[in-house]
């Protein structure tokens, strides 16, 4: 069962289209799996739409009608489009990706030991999104995050000091959280972070370049 959800304020910002694309994709990968949050988003959307007709708000009268003619002079109708979920094959396992990623380019996979990552090309400056694959038996050494890091588990399982996670879990971590995720059967995650991982323990501090790789 999914235990980790986006916060209320994140869902509200999502429903209003105010989050960066990377975070919107992460929230949508969660709501694809979580009917509870999906209903929340739809209800927020309906409330926002109702607010459009809020009796206490005064709207200006619209005088310039030239836009109407310009729009209606085009008689063609748009066809319904449906997002096709794409899939990736990593070391022989086929994974279906969230629909929200279907029009987005992925970089080629960079591999390092049991880790592999592909960048999601969104061009959002300091906020980076990645697909991260950890092979069965793989671990990411104990680390913290200099900024925030969101992980949405897409397939498989992993666990850390705080428990175990199932597909759909939306995990938000910041500087104050330290963890070392490991997976028994392997997993595919979507991660969104605004800074590199920072390894905190002994020898693995020498691994800080891995943090850059994953970020």
């Amino acid at each position, binding site marked *: 069962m999914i235990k980790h959800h986006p916060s209320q304020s994140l869902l509200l910002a999502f429903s209003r*289209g105010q989050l960066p*694309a990377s975070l919107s994709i992460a929230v949508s990968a969660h709501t694809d799996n979580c009917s509870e949050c999906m209903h929340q988003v739809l209800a927020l959307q*309906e409330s926002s739409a109702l607010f459009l007709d809020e009796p206490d708000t005064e709207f200006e009268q*619209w005088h310039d009608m030239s836009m109407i003619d310009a729009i209606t002079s085009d008689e063609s109708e748009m066809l319904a489009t449906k997002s096709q979920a794409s899939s990736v094959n990593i070391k022989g396992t086929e994974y279906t990706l969230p629909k929200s990623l279907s029009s987005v380019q992925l970089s080629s996979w960079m591999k390092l030991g049991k880790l592999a990552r592909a960048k999601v090309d969104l061009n959002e400056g300091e906020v980076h999104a990645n697909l991260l694959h950890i092979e069965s038996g793989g671990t990411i050494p104990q680390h913290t995050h200099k900024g925030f890091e969101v992980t949405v588990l897409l397939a498989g399982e992993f666990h850390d000091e705080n428990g175990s996670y199932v597909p759909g879990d939306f995990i938000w971590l910041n500087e104050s959280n330290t963890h070392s995720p490991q997976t028994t059967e392997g997993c595919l995650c979507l991660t969104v972070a605004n800074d590199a991982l920072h390894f905190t323990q002994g020898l693995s501090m020498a691994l800080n370049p891995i943090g850059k790789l994953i970020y």
Partner: protein
Amino acid sequence: MLSSNIRTDKKAMTVTSGPRDQSAMHQELCGWLHDVATLRSKSAFSELFKWFAPRIKQFGIKQFNNEAQALELVQETMTNIWRKSHLYKRERGAPTTWMYSIMRNMSFDMLRKIQTQREDTISDDIWPMENMLVSEDVDNFEDHLENKNIKTMLATLPENQKQVIIGLYFQQATQEQLAKQLNLPVGTVKSRLRLALNKLRNQLGESND
């Protein structure tokens, strides 16, 4: 007793409600959207435009803090409404929700273009429009309802009061959170709550006494 109330409540609602009542507006918007979709009626589209354009502009100014971009959002959104009206399904929710979703998607893609210089349109992948889901208001909170009658009674409330009751009692928001969410003063939430509770109490009273 209750059941006879229920059968008449639709009628009662239209009789007692004022000219700005949302269900009346809802009917009118549905009618216009229907005429645009089936007859390609330009006059119905003009009505939709006159109602929606100032609202989009206001939303756009909040989103972009720039009038020219807000007007571009009006143009883009209304163009999509004109060209996609045949895709609107009445049973999939209020026309306002449908139009709001188009506006939100357009605004998201525009913001993205402004901030990242990318021309891709990914909003329709994040919030699919074609099989748009609706929360079915109260239906999804059915499990939380001990008594189905409450659901039927809720249906007799005006939309804005129903929203407050659902927010506070079924989604368990605080009055402050709900006010923020709906962009309303807390006082308005409180007064709607009072009106709604009075109405519900009257109905309950009739059947309980």
